[in-house]
C-alpha cells in the first residue's frame, strides 16, 4: 500500500511540476493536469502550499492518511475552481517524524518554494520546533493533527483545525457516565508520548470534575506489546470501567489482552482508538469500546458522508480522522484565500483568523480567538463492528 501511495504521489508530483512549469510559461494554457476539466483560463495562477507530514518514521501511519486527505481536497478544489483564478499546488515533503527534518523542510518551503502557507506537521513535537520558523518568517501554518499544548501560542500565524483532547475528553467522559453510570475508574496511558500524556491529563481532570474515583493508574510505553502486568494490577483494584489513552498500536494490543485476561469491563478511550483500523485489528475484543473523537465515519454530517465516499473511491480504503482533518484543512485554507481574494501570506492569515461557522466535514467549524479549532466532538461506541454514535 505504501508503494502504491508513493507511485500515486509521484504521479501527482510530476503533474504538479508540469502544471507549474506550464504556468511559468506566462499565460499559456496548462495541459495534463489531474483536474483537467473546469475552466483553466490563461489567468489561472498556481499557488504553492507546503504540506509536511510524517510519511516515514514513528508517525508514518498517520501521515499516510493525512497525505491522502490533502490530495483529495486539493484535487476537488482545483477541479471545481473553488478559488477563482487559483490552482492549488501542493508540495508534499516528509519530516520522517523528526524535529530536525521538520525544521529543514519548513526552511525549504519558505525560502526555496516560497509557499503561501504550510499545512502540517503531523506531530506536536515537530510543530513546537518548526512553527517558530514559520512565525518568524510570517508564513501561515495550519496544523491538522497537532493536539498538544503550546502550538497556537507560538504566534498569530499558527492555526489548527485539530480539536485538542482537552476539548474532546470532557464530552466523552460525560457521555460515558450517562450511558454506563460508573463510579470507579482505572486509568492506563502511555507516558512516553506527548499526545497520550495530554489526553491523560484531560481524562484525569474530567474524571475528577465528575467525582469519579480513580482506583488505579498505570503507565506503559507506546512501543510496548505486553500490558498484562499493568492490566492485572488494574483489575485487582476493582474498577467499574477502564479508561485508556494512547496511540493506535498499543491500544489495540491492550484491548485484546484485557479481554484475554478475562477483563470484561467497559473500556473508554481517547483519540488513539478512533480509527477503522482499531475495529479491524481488535476484532471482537473491540465491541463496546466508547471513543470520543473530533471526527468519525459515524458523523452524520452530509459533507462528511460525501467525503467518505470520494475517499473510498479514490484510495480503496476508509478514511480516518487524520484524513478528515487534513481534508478539512485544505478547504479552510481555500476559504480563507477566497475571502481574501488574494494568495498573499498576510491576507491569508488575516482571513483564516476570521473563519466562523464554516461548513466542513468536521461539522460547523470556527477558529477560536486563540486560533484553535472549535467544533462539536463525536462520542461513539463500537457496535457490530462499526462506530456508532453513543445514544
Amino acid at each position, binding site marked *: 500500500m505504501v508503494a502504491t501511495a508513493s507511485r500515486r504521489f509521484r504521479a501527482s508530483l510530476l503533474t504538479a511540476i508540469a502544471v507549474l512549469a506550464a504556468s511559468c510559461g506566462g499565460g499559456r494554457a496548462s495541459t495534463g493536469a489531474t483536474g483537467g476539466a473546469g475552466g483553466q483560463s490563461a489567468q489561472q495562477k498556481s499557488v504553492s502550499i507546503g504540506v509536511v507530514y510524517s510519511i516515514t518514521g514513528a508517525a508514518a501511519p498517520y501521515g499516510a492518511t493525512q497525505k491522502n486527505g490533502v490530495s483529495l481536497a486539493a484535487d476537488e478544489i482545483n477541479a471545481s475552481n473553488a478559488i477563482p483564478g487559483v490552482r492549488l499546488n501542493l508540495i508534499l515533503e516528509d519530516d520522517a517524524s523528526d524535529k530536525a527534518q521538520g525544521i529543514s523542510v519548513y526552511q525549504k518551503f519558505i525560502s526555496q518554494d516560497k509557499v503561501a502557507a504550510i499545512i502540517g506537521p503531523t506531530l506536536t513535537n515537530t510543530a513546537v520546533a518548526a512553527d517558530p520558523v514559520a512565525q518568524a518568517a510570517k508564513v501561515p501554518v495550519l496544523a491538522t493533527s497537532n493536539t498538544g499544548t503550546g502550538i497556537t501560542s507560538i504566534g498569530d500565524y499558527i492555526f489548527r483545525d485539530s480539536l485538542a483532547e482537552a476539548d474532546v475528553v470532557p464530552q466523552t467522559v460525560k457521555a460515558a457516565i450517562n450511558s454506563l453510570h460508573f463510579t470507579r475508574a482505572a486509568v492506563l496511558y502511555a507516558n512516553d508520548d506527548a499526545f497520550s500524556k495530554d489526553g491523560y491529563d484531560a481524562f484525569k481532570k474530567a474524571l475528577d470534575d465528575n467525582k469519579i474515583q480513580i482506583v488505579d493508574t498505570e503507565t506503559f510505553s507506546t512501543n510496548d506489546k505486553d500490558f498484562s502486568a499493568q492490566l492485572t494490577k488494574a483489575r485487582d483494584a476493582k474498577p467499574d470501567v477502564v479508561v485508556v489513552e494512547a496511540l493506535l498500536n498499543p491500544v489495540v494490543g491492550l484491548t485484546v489482552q484485557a479481554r484475554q*485476561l*478475562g477483563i470484561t469491563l467497559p473500556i473508554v478511550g481517547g483519540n488513539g482508538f478512533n480509527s477503522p483500523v482499531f475495529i479491524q485489528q481488535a476484532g471482537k475484543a473491540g465491541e463496546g469500546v466508547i471513543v470520543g473523537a473530533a471526527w468519525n465515519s459515524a458523523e452524520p454530517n452530509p459533507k462528511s458522508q460525501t467525503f467518505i465516499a470520494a475517499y473510498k473511491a479514490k484510495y480503496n480504503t476508509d478514511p480516518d480522522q487524520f484524513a478528515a482533518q487534513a481534508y478539512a484543512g485544505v478547504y479552510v485554507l481555500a476559504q480563507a484565500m477566497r475571502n481574501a481574494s488574494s494568495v498573499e501570506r498576510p491576507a491569508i492569515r488575516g482571513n483564516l483568523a476570521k473563519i466562523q461557522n464554516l461548513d466542513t466535514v468536521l461539522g460547523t467549524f470556527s477558529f477560536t480567538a486563540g486560533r484553535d479549532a472549535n467544533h462539536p466532538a463525536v462520542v461513539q461506541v463500537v457496535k457490530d463492528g462499526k462506530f456508532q454514535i453513543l445514544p
Partner: protein
Amino acid sequence: MEQQAVNGIFSGSIYALFAVGYTLVFGVLDILNLAHQAVFMVGGVVALELMLGWHLAFWLALLAGTAAAGLLGVVLERLAFRPLRRRPGTEFSALISSLAIATMFEAIVLQVYGPNLQRFPAGAFPASVYQLGDARVSLLQVVIVAVSAALTLALYLLLQHSRLGSAIRAVAENRLAARVLGIDVDRVILVTVVVSSALGGTAGVLYALVFNGADPAVGHAVELKGLAVIILGGMGSIPGAVLGGYLLGLTEVATVAGLGSPFRDAAAFLVLFVILMVRPRGLLGRKAVRSA
C-alpha cells in the same frame, strides 16, 4: 497474584529464548551481535507475511520464519564477521559491522512493508484459554513456554553431548588450538551464527504471534532487555540466559505490581547496572570481565 506470576513466567520465556542465541554468539565468538534483534524482527515479519498473504498454517510459518532468520545468519556471518577474522581489528569492529548489517536488514523490511504494525489474521491460532487457579493462561502462551524450553534444552544437549557441540565449545575455548586440532573453525563459526539466528527468528515468530504484530522496530525494545538478561545470566552461559530471562520477566512484573508501572523498564537497566557493579560475571558466567 497468580496471574502476575503467569505474566512474569510467560514474558520471561520469551526473553530467555531471545537471550539464548544472543549469549551463544558471545560465548563462542566473543562478539556482541547487534544484528540478533534484526533477525528476531525478520522472523516475525516473514511468518506474518506467509500467514497473511499465502495462508500458511502456523507451524509452517514458524519453520519458515526460523529458516529465514537462519539464512540471514549466513549473510551476517559471511559479510560482517568472516572478513574481520582475517585482519587484526579492534574488539569492536564486529560489533559495529553487526550493527551495520542490522540497519540494512531493517531498512529492507521498512522499504518492503512500510513502518506499520502488521497483525496476524484473527483466528490464526486457537484461542483456548485455561484457568490455573486465579490466573488465565492461553493455549498460545503455554505453547510458547513449551517451545522455548524445548529449544533451549535441545541447544544445551547439542552443545554438551554432540560432536558438533564439542567442536563449538573447543572453538569458544581457544580458537587457535581448535584449528590445530583439525576442527574446521570457519564452518563451526558459521553453524554457531546460523543456530543463534534461527533461535532468534523463532523467538521473533512466537513474539509476533502472541502480541499479534510485527513491525520493523520490534527488535529494539527486546534488544535492550536481552542485553540485561545475558549480563544477568552471565555472558556465554546458556543456562544463565534462561535463568536471567525468567528472573527479569518476574522482576518486571513485580516492579509493576509493587512500585508502579513507570518503573518497569527501569527495572531491566537497574538490574544491568547493579550486576555490572557488584558481580560483572553474572550469575553463571565464566568469562573474564575486568581488564588486567
